[in-house]
């Protein structure tokens, strides 16, 4: 809601500094979205003098003016005739390109072929409430080109306040003024007496029938005749304009003005267009149609609540008036209406019809059936009768249908309870003072009657909040939390996630955050586990439709985006959930990584190597060992969509799939290769890893004997997997130990046994080529072994190696080189 503070002061009984007023908004909890001190915000508005004025076209509605905006500088401005202007007048001018505090940008317009380079600004258009005639006129030529605030003192501010949904009472000036007055210790000044003006006309009162009082708790109306429908005076027009409403005619303007003042929407029907001297509040009937003020047509599809006369619907209740019953300059008699509708009913209709108006906005949040008549209706009736407005006369009595009167809610507070919630010593007297200043009735035993405009007070804690607000939150001193000690801790998965991030950042990886909601293609590529896609029913773009099942796709996008920016080295990771619909929704924590490019970012070293499959695998192996996950295997498998088959492995832990590693296939993803180096992707399922990681390691002792290193070089068929050879080699070694004949030692007695253990098996070289022969590969494998108590002799070591080679030969026919 946009509030001009000059207008707001109409409702404050005493004066205060502008800044105090602005601070009060925040103190009391009215959220200020934007704040314009008009003296500053109107600085770009200049005083221009009208040098020439001639009618444009023959309607008499437009004038073409030559306006001098600086000494000797003339511009053309086309202005409408809503306010008279004369040659020789100095007026506020906004040249095209100026942004007004209302947010409107003055553009260059073309009217009947004439280019208009600016706008002559009325007070309301500038966000000001009208000074006198609504247009400030300067006669002193010395003011030519001066900035408006420099020649016309401006105190007002324009404040965009966001009224939170619990406080519809603050959707009107009076509600806001009540809050501000309470916190500034002022009195609220109502614009009119809050009792129904008993004047009634002689005509028959309109009959009102409410079909369902749960949907409309109160309906009041009165006929006025002799109505002069015309342009509103400037004090009224400018006030509407400061709030962002367009003046239409005085009757419509009065209903809008009173809505802005009281937060209660009103409507005025052209009474002569209605039939049967009767109003019904009911659901629309099958077959009925209603044309609205915005010329849209509503039918019975969503069964909205309507206002009907004796024959047909005439307005969409709480949302918008009807076209055929609108007040026009031709209207002679009008029917003024005020009502209180059920918020849920109005909200449901507005949602289904996709319509939102100033009126529905207020009804949805809740209006006050008691203030409706004595406040808003009464005020509008008075304004209609004013001679400089529509000079109307009541032509009937007020019909007031109010089947069950809404009573104010009562709560009995205790100072102890309020003090306990706030953590401060609050006395009964303080509570009483605070709540009384909000127009609540408070007895000495702290029984509080809450006025019916406060629809938010449904629990005593709200009253505790009111007390805290008015005492000001800053006055409540903090105090160290004295409560039962609780154990702070991270969850296991969270610990694992941080461990992963720590390892990867230490290895040169950059952590990314990419959207989990992505295109279907990226969301489903690289997926390792079964489960249906989860899609959103109401996406905002085709880039965000599906919850992803793998992180790799998004990271490939990151790599390619960086390649486009000239990157040549790629190491990216992300830890996040993936989503699958199985019997239940499976939210699985994953680690995704993408890497490629030089192993080291040292381009000046000519021998720098690029990352390949085995280097990527080495990194994943180290990560797994960092996480204390032992015994993982890498095996060939059918690759998930997006990986290339010849360089792909699934990673398993005792038959459980925990991840994958492979070279990215950009073609299947339809991504243009800008990286120009092989990219590798890997993924680990952290949710499963947490269940298979080993407990903290136990100390195994330190061997003091010498380790023996022996290499064997063998030629194997090239389709034999290294992992199989390694397994066989380990078995062969164990058998060799069984058959080992010990050699005598000086430092040991006759009966000692050797139990050498294989500490590691490392592939140190692979080679294939002509010298090895087709379909074969030469491997050099280094074995490190030792006995914990006795250093092996070279003879013993040779026995072991001979045995191992013999075994491998008999198993695979391998040849020792």
């Amino acid at each position: 809601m946009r509030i001009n503070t000059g207008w707001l002061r109409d409702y404050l009984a005493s004066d205060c500094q502008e800044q105090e007023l602005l601070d009060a908004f925040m103190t009391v909890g009215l959220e200020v979205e934007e704040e314009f001190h008009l003296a500053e915000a109107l600085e770009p508005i200049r005083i221009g003098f009208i040098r020439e004025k001639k009618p444009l076209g023959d309607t008499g509605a437009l004038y073409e003016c030559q306006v001098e905006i600086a000494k000797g500088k003339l511009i053309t401005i086309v202005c409408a005739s809503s306010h008279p202007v004369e040659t020789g007048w100095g007026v506020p001018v906004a040249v095209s390109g100026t942004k007004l505090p209302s947010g409107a940008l003055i553009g260059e317009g073309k009217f009947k072929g004439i280019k208009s380079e600016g706008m002559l600004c009325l007070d309301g258009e500038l966000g000001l409430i009208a000074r006198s005639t609504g247009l400030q006129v300067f006669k002193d030529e010395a003011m030519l080109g001066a900035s408006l605030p420099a020649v016309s003192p401006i105190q007002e501010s324009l404040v965009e306040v966001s009224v939170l949904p619990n406080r519809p009472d603050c959707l009107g000036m009076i509600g806001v003024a009540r809050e501000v007055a309470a916190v500034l210790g002022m009195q609220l000044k109502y614009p009119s007496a809050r009792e129904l003006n008993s004047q009634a006309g002689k005509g028959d009162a309109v009959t009102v029938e409410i079909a369902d009082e749960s949907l409309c708790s109160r309906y009041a109306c009165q006929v006025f005749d002799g109505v002069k429908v015309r342009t509103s005076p400037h004090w009224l027009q400018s006030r509407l304009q400061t709030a962002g409403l367009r003046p239409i005619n005085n009757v419509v303007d009065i209903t809008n003005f009173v809505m802005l003042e009281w937060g209660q929407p009103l409507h005025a029907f052209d009474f002569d267009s209605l039939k049967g001297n009767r109003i019904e509040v009911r659901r629309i009937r099958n077959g009925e149609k209603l044309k609205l003020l915005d010329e849209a047509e509503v039918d019975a599809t969503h069964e909205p609540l309507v206002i009907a006369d004796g024959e047909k619907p005439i307005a969409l209740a709480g949302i918008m008036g009807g076209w055929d019953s609108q007040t026009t300059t031709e209207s002679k008699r009008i029917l003024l209406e005020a009502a209180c509708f059920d918020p849920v009913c109005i909200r449901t209709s507005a949602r289904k019809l996709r319509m939102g108006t100033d009126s529905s906005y207020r009804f949805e949040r809740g209006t006050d059936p008691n203030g409706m008549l004595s406040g808003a209706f009464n005020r509008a009736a008075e304004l209609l009768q004013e001679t400089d407005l529509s000079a109307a006369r009541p032509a009937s009595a007020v019909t007031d249908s109010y089947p069950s009167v809404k009573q104010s809610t009562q709560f009995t507070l205790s100072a102890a309870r309020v003090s306990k919630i706030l953590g401060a010593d609050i006395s009964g007297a303080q509570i009483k003072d605070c709540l009384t200043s909000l127009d609540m009735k408070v007895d000495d035993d702290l029984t509080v009657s809450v006025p019916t405009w406060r629809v938010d007070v449904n629990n005593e804690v709200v009253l505790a909040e009111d007390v805290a607000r008015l005492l000001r939150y800053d006055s409540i001193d903090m105090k160290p939390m004295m409560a039962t000690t609780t154990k702070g801790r991270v969850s296991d998965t969270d610990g694992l996630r941080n461990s992963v991030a720590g390892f990867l950042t230490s290895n040169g990886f950059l952590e990314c955050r990419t959207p989990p909601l992505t295109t279907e293609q990226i969301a489903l590529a690289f997926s390792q586990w079964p489960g249906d896609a989860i899609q959103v029913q109401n996406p905002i773009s085709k880039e965000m439709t599906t919850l992803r099942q793998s992180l790799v796709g998004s990271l490939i996008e990151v790599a390619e985006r960086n390649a486009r920016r000239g990157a040549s080295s790629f190491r990216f990771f992300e830890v996040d959930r993936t989503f699958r619909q199985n019997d239940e929704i499976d939210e699985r924590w994953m680690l995704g990584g993408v890497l490629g490019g030089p192993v080291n970012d040292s381009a000046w070293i000519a021998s720098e190597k690029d990352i390949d499959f085995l280097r990527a695998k080495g990194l994943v192996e180290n990560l797994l060992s960092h996480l204390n996950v032992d015994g993982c295997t890498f095996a060939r498998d059918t690759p998930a969509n997006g990986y290339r088959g010849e360089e792909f492995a699934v990673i398993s832990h005792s038959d459980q799939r925990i991840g994958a590693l492979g070279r990215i296939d950009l073609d299947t993803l339809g991504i243009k290769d800008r990286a120009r180096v092989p990219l590798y992707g890997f993924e680990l399922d952290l949710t499963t890893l947490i269940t298979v990681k080993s407990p903290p390691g136990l100390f195994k002792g330190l061997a003091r004997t010498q380790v023996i290193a022996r290499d064997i070089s063998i030629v194997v068929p090239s389709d034999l997997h290294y992992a199989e050879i390694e397994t066989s080699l380990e078995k062969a070694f164990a058998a060799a130990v069984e058959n080992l004949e010990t050699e005598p030692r000086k430092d040991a007695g006759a009966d000692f046994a050797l139990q050498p253990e294989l500490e590691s098996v490392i592939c140190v070289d692979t080679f294939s080529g002509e010298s090895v022969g087709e379909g074969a590969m030469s491997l050099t494998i280094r074995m490190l072994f030792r006995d914990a108590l006795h250093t092996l002799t070279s003879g013993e070591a040779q026995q072991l190696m001979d045995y191992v080679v013999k075994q491998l030969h008999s198993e695979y026919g391998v040849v020792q080189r």
Partner: protein
Amino acid sequence: MSDNNDALVEAAKESIAAAQTLAELDEVRVQYLGKKGKLKSLQQQLKSLSPEEKREFGKTLNAVKQSIQTALTEKKEALEASEKTGPQIDAIDVTLPGVRSLPGHRHPLMATMEEVKSILIGLGFRYDDYPEVETEFFNFDALNTPDWHPARDMHDSFYTTVGNVLRTHTSAFQTRAMKQFGPPPLRAMTSGRCYRRDEIDASHFPIFHQLDVIAIDQDISFADLKWVLYQLASALFGEDVQLRFRPSYFPFTTPSAEVDVMFNGKWLEILGAGMIRPEVLQAGGVDSEQWQGFAFGLGLDRMAMIRHGISDIRLMYENEEAFLRQF
């Protein structure tokens, strides 16, 4: 004989001078003075000499041995001394860049999240994860926001299947935690992604991060909430941090507050907080007559942007290397 000896000493001295390292010097020593060294072979000749010649030759040998030994000792001292002063200054250009891969970096958002978490763990809050595909019940209804409530307009949700939304705020965890951990005292938190159908601009992204906290005990008050928030803020922004508490509205807390921090001379909104509504405690199975507590939630994107001076939220999701390397 003596010429021969002189030549031997000269050769030895040359070898000694040529030795560059202690190891090389030791090789020279072995070559001349070792068990199978050249001096030993000369000594062999003694056997075949007359006693007179023996004495004479012995003296000569001693002199030879002594001069070699002296040369060795001098050289050894020199080498040891030079080893202490380090290698030749121009041996390698130490100013060449090290061979390395560039260091990795955590995402500023995640670094901020971890920091906030660690502060709160120190204050006794437990961290757990909760679903992102959430039921409307936990996301809204349990938080005193029934279907017809206008406050739902503030959260334009993504719907997946009937009754499920992508959580619009981490506050959805509140009643889940209450139910899961049973009767208070309870101090719990969670953090992570939230989703709203917001248009993308410099300060909005449809997917963002929050961290939410609850504390429930017999008389945890608004004053306690202020204390905890000051602990958090001073750890993040420094001991002399200034906070401002403004009344606000959340359907699930009353009194509610927006909290601003003074940063670079401006008040910046950083979090929403308040006392948990009795209705919410009841929805979480907690007796609101016996227990009370506070809740607060903060936008981590905004927090990271404030801390690092990032002006546009979109930068955080574009993951440009030049961006990520700055934190």
